[in-house]
């Protein structure tokens, strides 16, 4: 359940931004989560309420932007979709892939007042 630690980090980031950017309440938090990243969206949703309790984001809505996984094959050089870290190239079947996207875990937008 490392999602709990990640959300504690989110809470700290919100508190820091509230001081530097002068807001008191967070209404919406948008996270960009890659399909190959190590977080479970359901676990994030589950832990969110507990972690944000008594914070400036106590009633905030959590929304996700899912980023698809994509790799470049070292063998044939083509781009290939990736749903898992162990996926092989859809063009030539080789498994040496450079991951270009899908590992993201970021806060990208806040709606605040």
């Amino acid at each position, binding site marked *: *359940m*490392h999602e709990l*630690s*990640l959300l504690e*980090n*989110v809470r*700290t*980031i919100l508190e820091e*931004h509230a001081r530097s*950017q002068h*807001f008191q309440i967070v*209404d919406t938090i948008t*996270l960009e989560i890659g399909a190959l990243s*190590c*977080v479970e969206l359901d676990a994030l949703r589950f832990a969110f309420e507990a972690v944000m309790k008594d914070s400036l984001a106590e*009633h905030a809505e959590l929304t996700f932007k899912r980023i698809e996984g994509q790799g470049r094959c*070292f063998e044939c050089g083509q781009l290939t979709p990736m749903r*898992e*870290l*162990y996926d*092989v190239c859809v063009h030539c079947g080789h*498994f*040496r892939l450079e991951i270009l996207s899908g590992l993201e*875990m*970021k*806060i*990208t*937008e*806040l*709606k*605040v*007042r």
Partner: protein
Amino acid sequence: MCGICGCGDSGQSGKWVPVKSVNLSPLISYPLHHHGEESIDKSRLIQMEVDLLSKNDAYATKNRHYFQQHGVFVLNLVSSPGAGKTTLLVETIKVLKDVFPIAVIEGDQQTQHDADRIRATGVRALQINTGRACHLDAQGIGEAVIQLGIENNSFLAIENVGNLVCPSAFDLGEAHKVVVLSVTEGDDKPLKYADMFYAADVMIINKIDLLPYVDFDVARCIAFAQQVNPSIHILELSATKGDNFDEWTNWLRSSMQKAIKSHAP
């Protein structure tokens, strides 16, 4: 008069403007209202790009800098519970403790048992009990390093909490994550727990002396690990019986020499 706030003003616009509902208590929801020019919705959007691991990564960078400055070669050992991390460390210390200084940070949810086993070999060890937490983090390691007092040009082993999931995400400032997989587990673990095998630079297949008694296909396991992480370095050994142990200690010696060399002015 407004029935909620009691103000007698009908507003410059002459009508009430409901803005949105906010929960003033968990049970009651009031519509807010405002009047004319005062009625600007203060909500605004802030765009940002902040990694969810940014706090941990900042501490990890600080740790890594400290380790490089002091020639400390650091390994972060990860595995499921019972793969043999502590035994691997105890046997490693026996071989190398007179070659260079060694210190160990032990992570477990509870007990001092592992640190006691390490201390019995004569090297310094610090136990971190993570309580409910399922992994070590870089901030905790930074504090442990100060508490432990690590010598220059030494080897620091961090034994993470036995867990093949959560520790994969948390950089501690180590030179390498080393994942230990024992042959009493399934040979498909690299696929089942791909995040960890992707994050690790080295995989140790431990307890190979038990291969005749278990249904573990080493070649299949290696193929799976390379499918997740084509550049992973693989060692096969038995920590208790000593099979192939030299290969591991030689790898450690040469990695140590590189760390010391890069530290030297």
